[in-house]
C-alpha cells in the first residue's frame, strides 16, 4: 500500500458546500491514515452519485477507494471483516432506503461486535448514508431512517447540518474506535459556508446552540436545522425570541446542552423530518420532559413528518416540516396561561 504524504494543513478560509466538505474530510482522513479505505456502489470512477468520493480513486488508488458488487449486506459485512482486521472502512450506502438490505449486518454485527467480545474486537467503521428528503427524489430515495439506528445500542449516530460540521464530524467518525452511522442530509449537500479547514470541533456527542433566544427552544438536527433557523428568524421579526439547538449527534445524546437550553426558555418544539411515531423526536420529547418537567410551561411540541411512507415528489412539501408548521407549533405553546 502506498501511503501518501499528509498534505500541509489547510488554513485558508474557503467557501465550501457540504458535499465538498465531506469530500475533503475523506481525502484528509485517507491521507492521514493508510488504514482508511472507502468502498460501496459507484464510489470509484464515478465518485458516487452525489460525488462525495470524487477524485479519491485517482488520488489514492483503486485499492483505497473502490466499487463493490451491488449488495449492501455484502458491503457492510465485508466492512465488518476489514475493520476486524486492522482497516478503517468507510462505506457508502447509495441512498437511505438502500441501507435496509444491510440491516441485519448493522444491527446484529456492526452494533454488537465490541460488546459480544468484551471489547476485544472493535469495529472502527463508518456507514455513510445520504438521507432524508426535500430533493424531489422518487420512492426509496428520501427516507429519514435515523430512528432505526438510534434505537440500536452500539451505534453512534450523527447528522451534520453545516459544511463545517460535516467535515468535523466525519473526521471524528473515521478516527473513532466505534462504528458510526453518518447521516448526510441530501438537501444540504449543496448548501455553502465559509470554513477554515481542518475544523475538528466540537466532537461527536456535543450539541450546539445555533441561535440564542429566550422565549422558546427549537430542537433540530440534520436537514431540519436550517428550517428551525429560518423559523427563528421570522419569529424574531414578529417579536418572539427563539433559541435553536442543533443536536449534531443523536447518539450519544447531549442531555446537558439540550436540557440547559430548554430550562432557559421553559418551552420547546422538536423539529424533525422523520415520521414522528416511535422516533428520535419522541425520544427528545420524552427525555427532556422527564428531566425538565418543572421548568416546562407547556408540553413540548413535535413538528415531524407524518406517519406515512415518504410521498412522491409532487406531494413531498406536505410531508416536510416547514417554517409555517414550526411557527404554528410555537404559537401553541400555551403563551397565555
Amino acid at each position, binding site marked *: 500500500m502506498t501511503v501518501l504524504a499528509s498534505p500541509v494543513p489547510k488554513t485558508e478560509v474557503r467557501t465550501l458546500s457540504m458535499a465538498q466538505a465531506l469530500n475533503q474530510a475523506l481525502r484528509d482522513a485517507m491521507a492521514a491514515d493508510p488504514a482508511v479505505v472507502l468502498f460501496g*456502489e*459507484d464510489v*470509484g*470512477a*464515478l*465518485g458516487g*452519485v452525489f460525488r462525495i468520493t470524487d477524485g479519491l480513486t485517482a488520488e489514492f488508488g483503486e485499492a483505497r477507494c473502490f*466499487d*463493490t*458488487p*451491488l*449488495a*449492501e*449486506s*455484502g458491503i457492510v459485512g465485508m466492512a465488518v471483516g476489514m475493520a476486524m482486521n486492522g482497516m478503517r472502512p468507510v462505506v457508502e450506502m447509495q441512498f437511505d*432506503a*438502500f441501507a*435496509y*438490505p444491510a440491516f441485519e449486518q448493522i444491527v446484529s454485527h456492526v452494533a454488537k461486535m465490541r460488546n459480544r467480545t468484551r471489547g476485544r474486537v472493535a469495529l472502527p467503521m463508518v456507514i455513510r448514508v445520504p438521507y432524508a428528503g426535500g430533493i*424531489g427524489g*422518487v*420512492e*426509496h*430515495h428520501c427516507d429519514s431512517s435515523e430512528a432505526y439506528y438510534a434505537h440500536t445500542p452500539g451505534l453512534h449516530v450523527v447528522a451534520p447540518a453545516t459544511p463545517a460540521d460535516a467535515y468535523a464530524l466525519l473526521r471524528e467518525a473515521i478516527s473513532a474506535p466505534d462504528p458510526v452511522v453518518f447521516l448526510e442530509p441530501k438537501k444540504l449537500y449543496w448548501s455553502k459556508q465559509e470554513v477554515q479547514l481542518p475544523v475538528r470541533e466540537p466532537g461527536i456527542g456535543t450539541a450546539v446552540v445555533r441561535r440564542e433566544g429566550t422565549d422558546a427552544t427549537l430542537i433540530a438536527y440534520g436537514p431540519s436545522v436550517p428550517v428551525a433557523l429560518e423559523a427563528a428568524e421570522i419569529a424574531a421579526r414578529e417579536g418572539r425570541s427563539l433559541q435553536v439547538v442543533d443536536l449534531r449527534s443523536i447518539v450519544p445524546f447531549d442531555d446537558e446542552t439540550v436540557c440547559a437550553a430548554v430550562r432557559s426558555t421553559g418551552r420547546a418544539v422538536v423539529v424533525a423530518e422523520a415520521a414522528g*411515531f416511535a422516533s428520535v423526536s419522541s425520544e427528545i420529547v420524552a427525555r427532556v420532559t422527564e428531566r425538565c418537567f418543572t421548568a416546562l410551561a407547556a408540553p413540548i411540541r413535535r413538528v415531524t413528518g*407524518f*406517519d*406515512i*411512507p415518504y*410521498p*412522491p*415528489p*409532487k*406531494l413531498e412539501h*406536505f*410531508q416536510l416540516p416547514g417554517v*409555517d*408548521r414550526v411557527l*404554528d407549533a410555537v404559537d401553541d405553546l400555551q403563551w397565555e396561561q
Partner: protein
Amino acid sequence: MTSDPRRLLPSADPVSLIDPQGRSADSPSYAVPDDATLLRALGSLITARRLNDQAYALVRQGRLAVYPSSHGQEACQVAAAQVLAADDWLFPTYRDTVAAVGKGVDPVEALSLLKGDWHCGYDPYEHRVAPHATPLATQLPHAVGVAHAARMRGEPTVVMAMCGDGGTSEGDFHEALNFAAVFRAPVVFFVQNNEYAISVPLARQSAAPSLAHKGIGYGIAGERVDGNDMAALLAVLGAAVARARAGEGPQLIEAHTYRMQAHTNADDATRYRDDAEVAAWVRRDPITRLETHLRDRGLLTDEVHARFTAEAERVATHLRDGLNQDVTPDPDDLFAYVYASPTPQLREQAALVADELSREGAH
C-alpha cells in the same frame, strides 16, 4: 443425480438467430420465429425506441424528473412482453417501462413514478404488471410468491421476473431463485445484462463465466441469448415460458445487451466509459438488425415501415400529451392509502393538513 447436471449449464455462446448484419444464423436448439411474429416485433421495437426517446426528451423539457432509458435494450423489452399470455405476470424494474407498456400498461400511467405524481400510476391487476421495482432484486421473491399462489390454485400463469446484471448480486436474487427452484414455481428470471450497473462494469459485478451459469447452483437451467437479437430473444424466452408453463419449474435467461445511454439523464457516463465502446454497440442495434433482416427477405416494405412509424408517433404523442397535463396533487392522498382505513393518528394528521390548507385559502 439422475441425469447429467451439466444439462443445466447455458450454451458457451449466447443464442443468436440473426447476426448483426441481419443474416439468419443457425442454432441447434431454436428456430427463427415465423415472419408474422417478427414483423409484429419490429413494429413494437419501433414504438419502443420512440417511447424511450420521447421520454428522454420529456426529461429535458422538465416534464419527467428522471428517466432510466432502455434505449438499445428494446429487443429485450419487447420480447419479455410479447412471449407472455394476457394472464401471465410481468415484474419490471425501473428500466423496464417499455416492457410494461408492451404488456398493456398506458405509458402515461407507467411514467407517473418518474413524473412524481404517484409511486405506481397503474393498476397492477389490470394487465398483470407489478409496480416498477426500485430496490434492486427485491421484486424477485414477490414474483415467486405470485407464481406459487397461481400454481396452488392450478392456474396456468407464468411470471416473467426481470432484473439487471447488477441486481444479480443482491441476496434477494439468490433467495428468489432458490425458492422458485425448491417450489418449482413457474417463473422466468430474465436478466438483462447491459454491462453496467450505473458506473460499475460487469467484471466488478461477477467473476462467473456468465450470469446464466448461476442457474445450476439452484437446479435451474440457465440460457444465454444475444439481447440485441429480437428473433433469438423471442425463441429463447418463448421456450422458457413454455417450459415453465409445462411444470418444468423456473428458468433463468441472461440476455447480453448494452445500456446505450447513461444510467439516467442525471448520470454522466463519460466518467466511466469510452465513446468507442458505445460506438461498437451502436453497430449491433437491435432495430437496424431486424429491419435489415426483414428488408433483405422482402418482408418489410416502405409502406409497412411507415405504418409502424406512424403508430410509434401516435404513442409518443399520447405520452407527450399525457405528461404535459398537470395533475394537481391532492394532499388527502397522502393519508388515504397507507391502510385500508386510516388509523386515528392518520386521521388527526390529515386534519392538520386540511386545516393548514383552509387557513392558507383564507389568506
